[in-house]
């Protein structure tokens, strides 16, 4: 009979990893998966910048009331379709010396003698002084905290400061764009949350059980993904009664958009489940007596969280574009709600765009910037999602 031998001294703790270079432990050798994902992600500078842009856009949406120089609905009928006023730093005094004073150029009105139409042109000499944290139109931040301080605005409240120009009712485009950011960016988030639930649940069921369940779910996915999306969105959005409140319409549009956005996610999750189902650690957990729920949520799901995150990021821009397209066509969100799509509604035909190109340029630019940033961020996340890949 063998006698047990006990090793004297402190018991062995810590991971069984030894650093290759003596005295200098390799940090990544003992790092957890999230740490590795972050290291790999941070190396992709483009994705990092894209992430910062997305974050900034959400912050703009969050503090829209404070950041916007004016209220989104404040109309000045005397300044319709006024061009953008240029932001400048120095004022030239009468003696020719330069003095620092943040200001924008003013307007002069000119009347077209043929059509008798009033139009505004930039007057280089007029100076409208502006400043930070000025008192302006009163608002309630998030509908809760009353305030009247705006980040940037004209020092005299009767002056105009239209950094991006105005629309056909004389409303400040910059303020509307900032308020639109809140609606457009949040639609993507809520929509993706809904399709995340649908996609992960159905994908997990499909991939975990296989067989008939899988076949049925796969057929459903095939039907949905082979329908051209825009006609389908149009069909569903057109059924929303005109009399419903803007908030209800907002949620219904989100629902419609997400109802067809989950298929890609479900496919991804299903594929991962198929691959992971036969892995040793899953078999071990099963033999240990784990319930199916525990198997799915405790053992399999954590190893695909990073992949889900990447797919979700790539799905978000589709939702934002969907809302923009529907609103642009007039069957999505409607005034008084302000979203990028609602803003683009003003730029429907060439004549309007030719007269006031800023109405197309800025909202369209915002959409494109967002979609680009999401795509780069999603690509970066996808590349970093599996840190153990070579």
């Amino acid at each position, binding site marked *: 009979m063998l006698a047990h031998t006990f090793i004297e001294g402190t018991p062995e703790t810590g991971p069984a990893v030894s650093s290759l270079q003596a005295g200098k432990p390799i940090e990544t050798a003992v790092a957890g998966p999230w740490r590795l994902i972050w290291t790999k992600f941070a190396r992709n500078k483009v994705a990092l910048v894209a992430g910062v842009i997305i974050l900034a856009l959400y912050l703009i949406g969050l503090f829209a009331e404070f950041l916007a120089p004016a209220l989104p609905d404040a109309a000045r009928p005397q300044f319709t379709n006024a061009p953008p006023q240029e932001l400048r730093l120095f004022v030239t005094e009468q003696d020719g010396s330069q003095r620092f004073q943040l200001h924008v150029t003013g307007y002069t009105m000119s009347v077209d003698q043929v059509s008798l139409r009033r139009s505004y042109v930039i007057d280089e000499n007029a100076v409208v002084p502006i400043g930070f944290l000025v008192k302006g139109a009163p608002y309630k931040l998030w509908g809760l905290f009353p305030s009247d301080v705006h980040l940037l605005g004209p020092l005299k409240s009767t002056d105009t400061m239209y950094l991006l120009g105005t629309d056909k009712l004389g409303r400040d485009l910059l303020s509307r764009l900032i308020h639109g950011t809140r609606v457009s960016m949040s639609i993507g988030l809520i929509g993706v949350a809904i399709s995340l639930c649908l996609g992960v649940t159905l994908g997990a069921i499909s991939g975990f059980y296989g067989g008939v369940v899988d076949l049925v779910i796969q057929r459903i996915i095939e039907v949905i993904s082979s329908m051209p999306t825009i006609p389908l969105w149009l069909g569903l959005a057109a059924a929303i009664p005109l009399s419903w409140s803007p908030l209800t319409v907002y949620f219904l549009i989100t629902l419609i958009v997400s109802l067809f956005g989950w298929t890609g996610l479900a496919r991804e999750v299903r594929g991962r489940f198929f691959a992971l189902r036969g892995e040793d650690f899953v078999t071990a957990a099963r033999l240990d007596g784990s319930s199916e729920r525990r198997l799915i949520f405790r053992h399999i799901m954590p190893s695909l969280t990073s992949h889900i995150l990447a797919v979700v990021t790539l799905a978000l821009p589709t939702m934002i574009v969907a809302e923009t397209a529907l609103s642009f066509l007039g069957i999505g969100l409607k005034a008084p709600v302000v979203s990028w799509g609602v803003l683009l509604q003003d730029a429907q035909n060439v004549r309007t765009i030719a007269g006031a190109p800023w109405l197309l340029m800025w909202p369209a630019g915002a959409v494109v910037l967002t979609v*680009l940033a999401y795509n780069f961020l999603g690509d970066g996340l996808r590349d970093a999602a599996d840190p153990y890949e070579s």
Partner: protein
Amino acid sequence: MLNYVIKRLIYMIPTLFGMSLIAFMIIQLPPGDYLTSMLATMAESGQNVDPAQLEAMRRAYGFDDPIWLQYWKWISGIIFRGDFGYSFEWNRPVADLIWERMGSTLAISIAALLFVWAVSLPIGIYSAMRRHSVGDYAFTFLGFIGLAVPNFIMALALMYFSYKVLGQSVGGLFSPEYVEAPWSWGKFVDLLAHLWIPIIVIGTSGTAALIRILRANLTDELNKPYVVTAKAKGLPEYKAVLKYPVRIALNPFVSAIGWVLPELVSGVTITAIVLNLPTAGPLLLRALISQDMYLAGSFILLMGVLTLFGMLISDILLALLDPRIRFN
């Protein structure tokens, strides 16, 4: 091969059924039916409506039937008689209205697909062969822009560009003087002058996606030993690349029909609305806004069927091209 095609056709049946359910659901979705809206218009114009007559009409149109019977009447009409229902707004059978519009939708989609192929093939090959060159980066950048700009925004921007720089008024497929004219060389040239904007708008995102796929596939293929061997034995580079690697990397071009086509049809819809092209898009939008649901539902159904057949064709072509698919 025949077995494969038959199996593929049988697989299509449940998908078609699902699509018809979705289209029928969209038809049924708006509250009320045609008679309620007719009643409202008649009451507005001060006409009296006889309740008995209304009841008779309800029965004649089958509005009180259970939902599955209504579905059966609708779908059997389409399958057996080509009867898509009645457009209440146009006062004509839907079948009269849709075919011409679906034809032009299909034509523009195919033209866009050809554009996608024609542009992405040379650029994809170039990008794979000259990886990380200035040209490659330029195309990658353009590709990202192409993927990021939504169709309708690009249509608006090109319209503005064409109006401002070229002084050409866009919209529609023909200049006014050619719309009713018979086909001639002048009409054809005029068509081309109008067609480039929708084709570019619709095709750009598909092109960008396909370039990325082709570049990745071809890069994998170019690193394989047989290409190295071919180059080592002195084959000119264009031959060593075009003869085998490109042919293998071409598979996604064929399978692309499957996933590019829904995107193209979708893109044609919204682009046509912006540019006012005589395709299904503007008519669909109008039908939806005036709740002319049989017309709208038929369009949605037919667009779905169109893409499904596109996928079928792509699968069959792929099976012809690649024996691995046929035998699995």
